[in-house]
């Protein structure tokens, strides 16, 4: 017996995810989306999901197939505007009132996830102080400036994308592929990474960009 986090399909790993789960999805600007895993989650058919993803509408992200399948109850993001003039699936459901939206400054979005993974239940941030996004939130003054209290976001599941994985769950990232993945991996109970390739041999310490400690399963899907 030895540690080996590599899997050949996501179905079994996802079984424990229930209706109403909170799911973090990495990715930014076309890079770092775990689209194979998102598709597997869609196929699982769970409903009333809370999706934590930077964009609710990115055209290259499969986040939209969860929304189109009406599996999403709420989205927490920093960007919820579709690119086209016509409304995106998210915008349609949001406008119809069937999907809830919590929109955040992107740094607050990232830091709330980091807090979730770092044991910080709440922190103060200057971002959004004095704007509509701070309405209803606790404001506190430090050194003559107003800050907004923000709480940690934790999740039941994070689906992230890496480049190379090893049996320990260690990951590398290519280009700007990391983005929200490392943060999300620290903040979710179950973390599955899809990667270009997954190897038995351990990555050398100098190449590991996310410790396998944070990753439960690694699925090789190719697609570099």
């Amino acid at each position, binding site marked *: 017996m030895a540690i080996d986090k590599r899997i050949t399909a996501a179905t079994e790993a996802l079984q424990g995810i229930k209706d109403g789960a909170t799911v973090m999805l990495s990715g930014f600007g076309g890079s770092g989306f775990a689209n194979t895993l998102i598709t597997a989650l869609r196929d699982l058919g769970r409903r009333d999901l809370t999706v934590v993803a930077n964009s609710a509408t990115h055209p290259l992200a499969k986040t939209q197939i969860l929304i189109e399948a009406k599996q999403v109850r709420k989205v927490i993001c920093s960007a919820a505007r*579709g690119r086209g003039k016509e409304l995106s699936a998210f915008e349609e459901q949001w406008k119809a009132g069937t999907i809830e939206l919590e929109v955040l400054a992107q740094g607050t979005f990232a830091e709330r996830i980091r807090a979730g993974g770092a044991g910080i239940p709440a922190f103060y941030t200057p971002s959004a102080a004095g704007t509509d996004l701070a309405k209803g939130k606790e404001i506190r003054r430090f050194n003559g400036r107003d800050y907004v209290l923000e709480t940690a976001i934790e999740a039941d599941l994070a689906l992230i994308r890496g480049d190379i994985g090893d049996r320990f769950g260690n990951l590398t990232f290519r280009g700007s592929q990391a983005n929200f993945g490392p943060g999300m991996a620290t903040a979710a109970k179950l973390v599955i990474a899809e990667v270009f390739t997954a190897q038995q041999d351990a990555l050398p310490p100098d190449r590991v960009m996310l410790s396998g400690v944070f990753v439960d399963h690694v699925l090789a899907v190719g697609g570099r």
Partner: protein
Amino acid sequence: MGKLNRQQMAWRAAQDLQEGMLVNLGLGMPVACSQYVPHGREIVFQSENGVIGAGPLAGKNAADPDLVDAGSRQITVAVGGVVIDSVASFAMIRGGHIDVTLLGAFEVAANGDLANWDSRIPDKGPLVGGAMDLAASAKAVWVIMEHTTRKGGPRLLDQCSLPLTAPHCVKRVYTNLAVLSVGPDGFTVHEIIPGMSQAELQAATGAKLTFAPDCGTINAPDLADEE
């Protein structure tokens, strides 16, 4: 009287970026600035998705969908650059490490208030992105925008009418008509386009302007408007 086109506005702002600065460029006109930095001046461009030292756009053969900037454009990493994750990137931004953020805007008020995220498009979802973090925490917030709306209304105002991105943050504004600073006394004009009078600029502005004693003219090179 030649209003600056968008490339010329980007050019003008780029002239003020200094060697060694860490600079974040917003979507639209701001990102165009990187190509107009005076030759030999090394600037570190930060893209909020984690590229610290963003290089030029990737050529067709080098384009890599895994390496993008905050505008989803396929780019390169400059010599001396590194890629970090979003948590670390926004820690850098919020921690006040960005020397200058150049942002687009809908409105700027005489007290430095910035409105650049919500133009109230009916039904479309909100798009906040990284602007609130950048505006709240960069050492200097500079804005590039048209001096007036498409209908001719002012964008430089006593008070913003649109939802704020951050209060009291804008230090400079580069428009197609002028270069202005924002201070305790509101807007001060430092440069105007050739042929425009102070009275004409004031008439196009929704807040009282002060003109710097050494107020000069913008001498932009001819640049084709690429957009």
